[in-house]
Every structure is written in structure tokens, then in C-alpha cells.
């Protein structure tokens, strides 16, 4: 056995270890990449469909369309995918692959905003992607509006909110409360506020623009409010054009 205390041995060991581990990780990452991208693509389709009410929810829990069916269902219900750039609206069949986080970081003139128009049972849904900041990390989601700016459904997700607290934004009892809320007050954009002290845990006042906050998750709730208000606002001028 070589003398493992020698400096030269230590250096050689470190170099070899880094090379071996590095190439092992690079190999794993690149060989799994296609499968991971595919999963992420299906997830986005599932989320968009979820917001417009195409899901397999059973009582109380969130259930998406299964991955093997989602591609076909997405084609069936999403009748148009649009991209808004520089005030112009164009069709783009891969708009759902646009990463909103990157787009929001760009200048207004270079920004591409994806928008999805879905149709279910003769009714149109305008599905807007959202992106914002929670307590620990990113939060994002989709919100589906009808032609009167009434929320038809939402989907939220997060990267690292606290389990049992902020992470509950993706639970049914939080997301379902948004359905029926209006984002406009008259002709002005109002957004939706995740409100503490709303005194309305059953969400009986549907159209007050407020939903009941989650206990112990103030910052995440504020993040949801800010996310809805900042991203949806960008789309309002175009939604007006689309409808008439």
C-alpha cells in the first residue's frame, strides 16, 4: 500500500476523485436529460389544463390528467397558444414551453408573454401563466379567466415553501377559493388579495377580490398576491383586444 500521507498522493487522489465523480455526474445528467425534459413538458401541460378545470380531482386532493393522456387532452382543449411581444399577438404552437421567469427578466420590448386560450363545453378560457417569489424561493402558477374576468380556476406551485405552511398553496382548499373571484373592479384592474382577517374562511363572498390566507404562511400568501397582481396586470390590455 502506498503511503497515503504523502502530499503527492493526496493531490493525485483528489484529482482522480474529481475526474471520476465529475464524469460520473456528467454522464448521469446527460443520459437522463431527455426523460427529465419530457416530464417537465408534461407537467406544464397538466398544470395549464388543471387551471381550466381539466383534471381528475377526487374529493380534496389534486389529481392531474395522467401523463400518458395529457398530450392528447392538451391538443383537444387548448385551441390557441398565443405569444404577446411588443404589443403584437401571434400564434405559436410551442408557447407553453416559454419560461416566464426568463421573459420577465427581459426588457419590455423583447419580452414574450405566453397566453393560452382553451375551450371547454362551448366556453372560452384565457389561461395566464404567473411567476413570483414566495418566502424561500420561486412560486408560479396558472390562472384561468373567462370573458368577464372572473377566475375559473388556478394552479399554484412552489420550489421550496415550508411544508405544512406555505407549501399548502398547492392544496385544493386554498386554490379552490380563487374560483369565482373577479380580478377587475369596474374597468380598473384590482387583482386578488390573499387576505388575513378576511373573516370569510368558507369564502362565501365570492366576488370581493379577497381569499382567506393560510395560517402561518403570511409571506407566501403575500407572494401569491404580488404574483397575481404583477403578472396578470401585464395581460389586461391584450385581453381586452382579444375579446372584441
Amino acid at each position: 500500500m502506498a503511503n497515503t500521507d504523502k502530499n503527492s498522493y493526496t493531490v493525485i487522489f483528489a484529482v482522480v476523485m474529481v475526474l471520476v465523480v465529475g464524469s460520473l455526474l456528467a454522464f448521469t445528467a446527460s443520459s437522463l436529460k431527455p426523460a427529465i425534459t419530457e416530464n417537465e413538458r408534461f407537467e406544464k401541460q397538466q398544470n395549464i389544463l388543471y387551471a381550466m378545470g381539466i383534471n381528475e380531482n377526487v374529493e380534496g386532493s389534486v389529481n392531474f390528467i395522467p401523463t400518458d393522456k395529457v398530450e392528447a387532452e392538451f391538443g383537444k382543449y387548448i385551441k390557441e397558444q398565443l405569444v404577446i411581444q411588443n404589443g403584437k399577438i401571434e400564434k405559436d404552437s410551442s408557447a407553453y414551453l416559454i419560461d416566464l421567469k426568463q421573459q420577465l427578466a427581459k426588457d419590455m420590448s423583447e419580452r414574450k408573454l405566453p397566453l393560452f386560450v382553451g375551450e371547454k363545453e362551448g366556453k372560452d378560457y384565457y389561461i395566464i401563466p404567473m411567476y413570483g417569489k414566495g418566502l424561500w424561493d420561486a412560486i408560479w402558477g396558472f390562472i384561468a379567466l373567462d370573458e368577464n374576468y372572473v377566475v375559473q380556476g388556478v394552479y399554484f406551485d412552489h420550489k421550496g415553501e415550508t411544508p405544512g405552511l406555505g407549501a399548502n398553496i398547492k392544496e385544493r382548499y386554498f386554490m379552490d377559493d380563487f374560483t369565482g373571484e373577479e380580478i377587475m373592479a369596474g374597468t380598473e384592474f384590482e387583482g386578488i388579495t390573499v387576505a388575513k382577517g378576511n373573516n370569510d374562511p368558507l369564502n362565501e363572498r365570492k366576488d370581493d377580490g379577497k381569499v382567506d390566507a393560510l395560517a402561518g404562511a403570511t409571506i407566501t400568501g403575500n407572494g401569491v398576491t404580488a404574483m397575481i397582481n404583477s403578472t396578470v396586470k401585464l395581460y389586461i390590455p391584450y385581453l381586452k383586444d382579444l375579446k372584441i
Partner: protein
Amino acid sequence: MALLSKKDRGLILDPLADNNPITIQVLGICSALAITAQLKASIVMGISVMFVLGVGNVVISLMRNIIPSKIRIIVQLVVVAALVIIVDQVLKAFAYELSKTLSVFVGLIITNCIIMGRFEAFALGNGPWRSFLDGIGNAAGYALILVIVGFFRELLGSGTLLGFKVLGDPIAKTGLYAIGYENNGFMLLSPMALIVVGIIIWVQRSRNKALIEEN
């Protein structure tokens, strides 16, 4: 258990009780506080740590004679980090739903002091098979406490277990809530995990007086 000699059996069983990594060695407290608000997260974290510690212990044990002692901690870190990244990628590719539930926890495994502790204290001085048993045993002891804490925190804090409303619906006032029971929101906050762990330590030491240190 006839497969294992008495000594080997001890490697698995001791960490479950009288040499528990959390309640006796007081390692891995950080993750025990962070992720035990829900039972499901506790179980998943326990299984993930079991995998990483079992495999990691074997890898370190196989390399124990060639690792330069000056950089052994770095070598251990590299092994844990590489294993964790591989687990994360494989989950994302083949069990995407599960990897979403795990999200941050997979990364958190790296920081779990039990793992470095077992590498340093056991795997560097023992053969692969015994190291493997030691890894599984310690991870099981860790998982056991996590599950106990997760059970009480979810039950008393949210009134649910694994997401099922076992005590009734707090908003519609059914079940226990109909007679005025309220969830204790404190249980969802991290400090309460420490108190639950403290109660477990107290129960354990009062049942086995040999565990009480003299001072």
C-alpha cells in the same frame, strides 16, 4: 434474523433504541425540526437517508484504505453529494411526482450530520457489509424518530395523517371539531418539533436509567 450474527444484529437494532442517532447522539436534529410538520415528508426523508447512508457507508468502507487522511472529510462530502445528485436526477427522470414531493429534502440530505458522523465513526474502520448494516440501522433509528415526531405534529397541528382528515373537518365542524376541539397551530412551527423530541428523550431515559449521564 438468523442470517445475522449477534454482533451484526446489534448494528441494526442498537440505533433504533439505546443508541439512537437523534435522541441519544443528538445528531440530525436540524432536519428533524425542518421537515416533520407532515408525516409523509418524514417517511420519505427517512427512506432517502436510508438509501444514501447505506450506499455511502459501503462506498466509503471500500475506499477506506486508499483515502488520504488529510482530505478524508472532503472525500466523504464528495461521496454524499454525488450520491444525492444521482438520486435526485434518477427520481426526476423516472418518478417525477415523487421528486416533486421531495423537492428540497433531497438536497437537505447532504447537510445531515448523521451521514458524515457514520462515515467518520464507522465506515472508515469497518468492512463493507458491516458498514452497510450500520448505515441502514442508523438511518432506521433516524427515520423512527422522524415518523414519531411527524405523526404527532401532523395529528395535533393539522388534524390530519398523511393528508387524511382523521379528526373531522375543522371548517365544516365535523368529528371532534363539532365538540369544540381546535388544532394547535404551534405544532406546525419548528420549535415544537424540538419539544416533541425532548419528550421522546425524557420517556426513553426514564424507562432506561442507564442512558442518563452523570454530571
